[in-house]
């Protein structure tokens, strides 16, 4: 009975004179390597040249501000719950009087940290966020010398007022519509009688 068609008969035949001389094979090999002399190297000289990346690339996160410059994040913790790598931690605080221009909602994130070494850049935090506050951007996370430096705090995550980050590529109407449905599903999940996670 034949099980596979990958059977090969072992060949123990004597080498021919040309094979024993090595020289024809060596010449052939040398012609192959020589032909590569005239090929263009596909190298990308990194800091000067950069590989084009997709507009919806999932790179370093940003914590968005709204149109008035107030932080959108309300420290609800949905992103931290959604995060499969458990990379996100935060502490919440209550907004004081006079801070309305700083924080959009009454509650805000006092600290917000993402461990970039834990993060797998899946984008689930972005999907879970009900306030459109966290987004992944096409920026790359820089190399660091210390492990601790990879824990990014609010100083690195919140977008600068004078350097707003455009996330319209990731925030298309389709995405918003999808998030709305997902949000309802999430609510169903929490309020509904049975917790059937595999049935989105």
């Amino acid at each position, binding site marked *: 009975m034949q099980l596979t068609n990958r059977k090969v008969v072992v060949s123990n035949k004597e080498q021919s004179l040309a094979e024993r001389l090595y020289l024809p094979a060596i010449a052939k090999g*040398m012609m192959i390597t020589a032909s590569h002399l005239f090929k263009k190297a596909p190298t990308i000289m990194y800091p000067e040249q950069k590989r084009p990346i997709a507009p919806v690339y999932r790179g370093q996160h940003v914590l968005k501000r709204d149109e008035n410059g107030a932080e959108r994040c309300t420290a609800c913790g949905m992103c931290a719950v959604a995060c499969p790598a458990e990379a996100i931690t935060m502490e919440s605080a209550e907004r004081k009087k006079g801070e309305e221009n700083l924080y959009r909602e009454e509650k805000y994130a006092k600290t917000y940290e993402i461990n970039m070494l834990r993060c797998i850049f899946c984008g689930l935090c972005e999907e879970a966020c009900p306030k459109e506050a966290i987004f992944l951007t096409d920026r790359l996370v820089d190399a660091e010398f210390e492990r601790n430096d990879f824990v990014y705090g609010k100083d690195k995550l919140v977008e600068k007022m004078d350097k707003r980050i455009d996330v319209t590529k990731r925030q298309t109407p389709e995405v918003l519509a999808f998030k709305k449905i997902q949000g309802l599903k999430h609510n169903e999940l929490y309020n509904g009688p049975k917790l059937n996670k595999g049935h989105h």
Partner: protein
Amino acid sequence: MTGLIIYKAIMCVAVFAVSLGVAAYSTWWERKFAAFLQDRKGPSRAGKWGLLQPLADGGKMFMKEEIIPNVSNRALFILGPSLFMITSLMTGSVIPWGKPVVINGQSYALQITDINIGVIYVLGVASVGVYGIMIGGWASNNKYGLLGAIRASSQMISYEIAMGIALIALIITAGGSLSLKDIIESQDAGYCNFVYQPLGFLIFFICALAETNRAPFDLAECETELVGGYHTEYSSMKLGLFLFAEYINMFISSAIMAGFYFGGYNFPFATEVYAALGLQEGSWMISLIGFGVYFAKIVGFICLFMWVRWTLPRFRYDQLMNLGWKTLLPLSLLNLALTIVVEYFRGTIHF
């Protein structure tokens, strides 16, 4: 007398500097050439096209920590790389780099010394170089080092025989002189020796690959099985000397092959070219052009060495020995016999 001493000193320093310079830039070119053969870019950060890479490498080697193992034989451990380096630099002294220059009616040969046993001197010094590897590998008191040293020495001894016999055939065709100058001069009219000795050249080239311990015959330092071979225990500049001396060896064997088989500083229609340029016999321009031609041939051979290295996989040890003793030795004997018969009927040798 003082003039002679100054002239010899200048020649020594010049040959020393050229050998070291070429070896340094061979390391750069080796990496660059390997990169081109493998569709890469090679060193490109240190200076334009990475041209300062040899300096950076040298600086790195000097700064590295120097480790001499406690269990090693200290004196021999230091002697090993020194001997290897000295012998590889010594061989350059008998190579004529160009036609003599005439200054104030005095002829100055572009050669440190033209001894009448030049070929034997080169072979002799090259085989003393094996002691450098052997002593280094043995003195490091390391199994891998010892194995590498044994491999290197047995390989060199095996391939020297075929190399020597190929050279005897060459010397018969080249007129019977053992002086390197005479061998190169014998090719200044007519064809280069390669035309008469193609098989001899092939044997010599393969043996030169083995003598310089380069791929596919680099079993002495094969990283995959022996860690680093004979220089496993070496670090810092001692390791640098071992690696560097190999490149000098490569340069010298390229010079010898270009001189013995491809006419050295001679080139086709040389007299016509010199006459067309209106150059007199003994002019320094002739020497310069000759040196340039010789150098181009040497660079060509260095490229060939590298091309072979980045194409072929390493031989297995038994294959290496089989090739040396059962193929190259009989072939070189056959080549010698054929040469003797042909030269006898041409009337160049008599019994």
